[in-house]
């Protein structure tokens, strides 16, 4: 599957998400002598699903190195190095493991600039990967964007395409003044995208991934792809024009952009990779209601994980996450009402579309 995040034009090429990560990691090490990458397995043959492969050989063990199982300690080490001028990049192959680093991320990194009145800064990039499908289960599947975005001092992004990585990472690494958490999605790693030479098309905030006029879909991460596929389907089958906004930055979205779109369409679907409760979906509604309680013509539709820990059985996992079927239905219901009468795609399991991810991890 190849999905264009941008309109193909001069100089486009096809690049996988993992390939985009590898290119940006490589460029960061080449361009900035103060940058180093550490994490469990960054220098092994799997190289964080191909995103760091070969870099230890190229830049040496002082700049790309494995660490013991010490999520909190590693993050503290990164803060210390950052405080003296380094730019550390750390990795967690599952977001769930970054919870062991919560103390350093939330109590220290997020606070250091403010708590010391601007005396200290600890810019760094924390890359964490959300797992999904192939039985990831309760502890390999969590998507903590709203958790992290809740804390002032953290910048949280969720790149949904190779283009987003090519555009954002160079703007973050060694440039952004504070700690940034990038929540990458495992399902995206092996997908190919059409990319253009980086002209910062994807900003460090929200952007319109597809223009439309009938309904606004605010989506995050892999759900942006799902929304794009659904938008194509409803256009083909029903001539519905869905506008897709990739929220992209969870901590610093462009709420004016979202509000302007909803003002135009009056209809809203939010498609997030996590739970709805106290999450992105809730924040989207807060932002809209605070601007103008009359923006929506009808109650919005919310797509996210079912309010339970993630089950392992495929039959349960398939109904735990929103399917392509449900994403399409959400858009149709918004525009045509409950009895829209339009046939839904046959695909019930969203991960059918990501066949290349065959596990195990």
């Amino acid at each position, binding site marked *: 599957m190849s999905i264009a995040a941008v309109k193909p034009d001069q100089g486009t090429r096809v690049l996988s998400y993992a390939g985009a990560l590898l290119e940006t990691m490589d460029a960061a090490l080449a361009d900035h002598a103060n940058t180093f990458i550490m994490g469990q397995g960054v220098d092994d043959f799997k190289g964080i699903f191909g995103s760091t492969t070969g870099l230890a050989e190229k830049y040496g063990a002082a700049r790309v190195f494995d660490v013991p199982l010490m999520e*909190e300690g*590693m993050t503290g080490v990164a803060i*210390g190095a950052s405080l003296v001028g380094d730019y550390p990049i750390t990795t967690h192959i599952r977001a769930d493991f970054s919870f062991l680093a919560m103390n350093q991320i939330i109590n*220290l990194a997020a606070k250091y600039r*403010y708590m010391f*009145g601007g005396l200290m800064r600890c810019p760094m990039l924390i890359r964490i990967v959300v797992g999904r499908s192939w039985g990831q289960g309760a502890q390999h599947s969590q998507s903590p964007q709203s958790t992290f975005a809740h804390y002032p001092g953290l910048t949280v992004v969720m790149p949904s395409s190779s283009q987003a990585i090519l555009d954002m990472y160079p703007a973050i690494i060694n440039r952004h003044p504070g700690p940034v958490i990038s929540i990458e999605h495992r399902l995206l790693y092996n997908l190919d995208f059409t990319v253009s030479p980086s002209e910062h098309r994807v900003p460090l905030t929200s952007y319109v991934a597809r223009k439309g006029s009938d309904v606004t879909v605010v989506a995050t991460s892999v759900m942006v792809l799902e929304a794009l596929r659904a938008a194509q389907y409803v256009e083909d089958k029903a001539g519905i024009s869905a506008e897709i906004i990739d929220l992209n930055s969870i901590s610093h979205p462009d709420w004016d952009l979202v509000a302007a779109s909803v003002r135009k369409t009056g209809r809203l679907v939010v498609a997030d990779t996590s739970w709805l409760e106290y999450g992105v979906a809730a924040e989207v509604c807060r932002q809209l209601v605070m601007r103008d309680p009359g923006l929506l013509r009808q109650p919005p539709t919310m797509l996210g994980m079912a309010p339970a820990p993630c089950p392992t059985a495929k039959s349960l996992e398939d109904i735990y996450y929103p399917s392509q079927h449900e994403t399409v239905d959400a858009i149709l219901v918004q525009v045509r009402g409950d009895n829209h009468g339009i046939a839904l795609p046959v695909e019930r399991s969203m991960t059918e579309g990501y066949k290349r991810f065959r596990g195990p991890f």
Partner: protein
Amino acid sequence: MKDEAIYRRLFRTALLIRLVEERIIELYPSDKIQSPVHLSIGQEAVAVGVCDGLKPDDLVFATYRSHGFYIAKGGSLDAMFAELYGRKGGVSGGKAGSMHLAAPEVGLMGSSAVVASTIPHAVGAALSFKRRGLSQIAVAVFGDGATEEGVYHESLNFAALMKVPVLFLCEDNGLAVHSHRPVRQSYRLAEHAASFGIASRRLEEGWDMLAIRQATLEAAAKVRAGEPFVLEIVTSRYKEHVGVGEDFHFNYRTSDGVDAWKRRDPLIVDQKLVATLRPDIEREIEAAVAFAEASPAPGRDELLADVI
């Protein structure tokens, strides 16, 4: 320099720390300092001896109990009092208070109120020094209680693996809040460190500034050569854990240990030197208090500054 001159220099800094904290005790009932204070009275010799044994560009990563390290590293007294007062002229514009003193210009790289949380920062700074081929060392300052936290273990392991120039400095006052060390620890710090291949030393004479300075010089030399080191210094916290009072009447400890310590405390024993140095130091402190009093309070303009 002769020991006598060094002693006098150390003594003056230690006395400055003590008189600053005694001034804080006097001011506290006025509510001008609205910040939890963890006094280091009784422990000054550690900060003074250690910082004097370091080079000026060696970095210290500290804790909420860091008035002593801030002053011993050379932080501005005016900015410290203004910080305690929550004023704009404070070292961090009033956003830090007593528990988060920092003075990066003299190598105090922040202090945290989450126990043990700055220990890995020292390791990270040391890692950077090593990669860049610098001769600086980083010092993690922490209490005996902090060694119970997992991140202490993680930090020692990583420092030993990477052979980074970090000095782990444990201020052993035998207490974590009101809890005594034997009920908290099933290990011995030296043996624990040795299991990582990290050399250590325990100095019982934590009132002796010259001995602490000497121990630091020796430890720092090893660290600078590329080996992490654990230096444990026994000390005594005279005051309550947090706040400006005493706490013997709560009966979780007797005053015996503190009394014995006071009989050896140079700032108590050497009254002649105290009398000589005191007037000058008091003028310095009064000027800092006056600076704080005159400094404006931060407001709306500062509330949302420096968040990201």
